[in-house]
């Protein structure tokens, strides 16, 4: 197990990047690198009114915490934060935030990358598309490339 602080939240509302980075790093002099990943609702075609994120309350938090703990142990992170939103999210809005801190840069990069790969493939969230024309579109399909991205971390 790890003594590094882990912050995990699943919430409807938006998050503030600067506030979360500050909470993770303020007052510490031992952190050399902080990496953040923000995942946004993307709509290049202009046909999307919103993504609707469904989640499994309880398990979502538990699974993300397991992923963060694993990343901390594997990469020697000093802290990790993961926040995932649910509900309707409009194009351009935030969906997910991951923050990692470490003494040196590569661990922070790898830790955030690892957390995102597992979050995509094992955290219980599902996306449904709502179209600009009022239609409730289909459920987004899981991508093989997300499984491949996860599998590259296997030893």
């Amino acid at each position, binding site marked *: 197990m790890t003594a590094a602080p882990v912050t995990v939240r699943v919430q409807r509302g938006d998050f503030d990047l600067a506030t979360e980075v500050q909470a993770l790093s303020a007052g510490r002099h031992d952190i050399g690198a902080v990496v953040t990943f923000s995942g946004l609702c993307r709509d290049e075609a202009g046909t999307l009114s919103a993504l609707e994120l469904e989640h499994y309350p309880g398990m979502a938090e538990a699974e993300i915490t397991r992923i963060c703990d694993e990343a901390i142990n594997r990469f020697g992170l000093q802290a990790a934060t993961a926040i995932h939103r649910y509900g309707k999210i409009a194009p351009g809005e935030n*969906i997910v935030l991951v923050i990692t801190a470490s003494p040196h840069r590569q661990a922070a990069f790898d830790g955030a990358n690892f957390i995102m790969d597992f979050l995509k493939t094992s955290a219980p969230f599902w996306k449904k598309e709502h179209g600009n024309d009022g239609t409730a579109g289909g459920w987004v*399909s*899981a991508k093989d490339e997300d499984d491949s991205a996860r599998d590259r971390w296997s030893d």
Partner: protein
Amino acid sequence: MASVNLVYFAWVRERIGRGEETLELPDTVVTAGDLLAHLKTLGEEYEAALEHENVIRVAINQEHVDHDETIAGAREIALFPPMTGG
């Protein structure tokens, strides 16, 4: 017969037509895979939801399990499609 709470998400929930239910399971249902097979006998909504059994993910007490794992001790079993968060 054991009683278990079942929860469904995303298109599994939509096709079954409810988000949760409590079912009595016959003793012949030992593994998660057995559970899926049993549910498919309960009606066409279950058949439609679980048609492609191999893509259905199962979590017991909020942890992922393979289809061949036992459901003994399960308080809550969740069935859902592959995840698409992040």
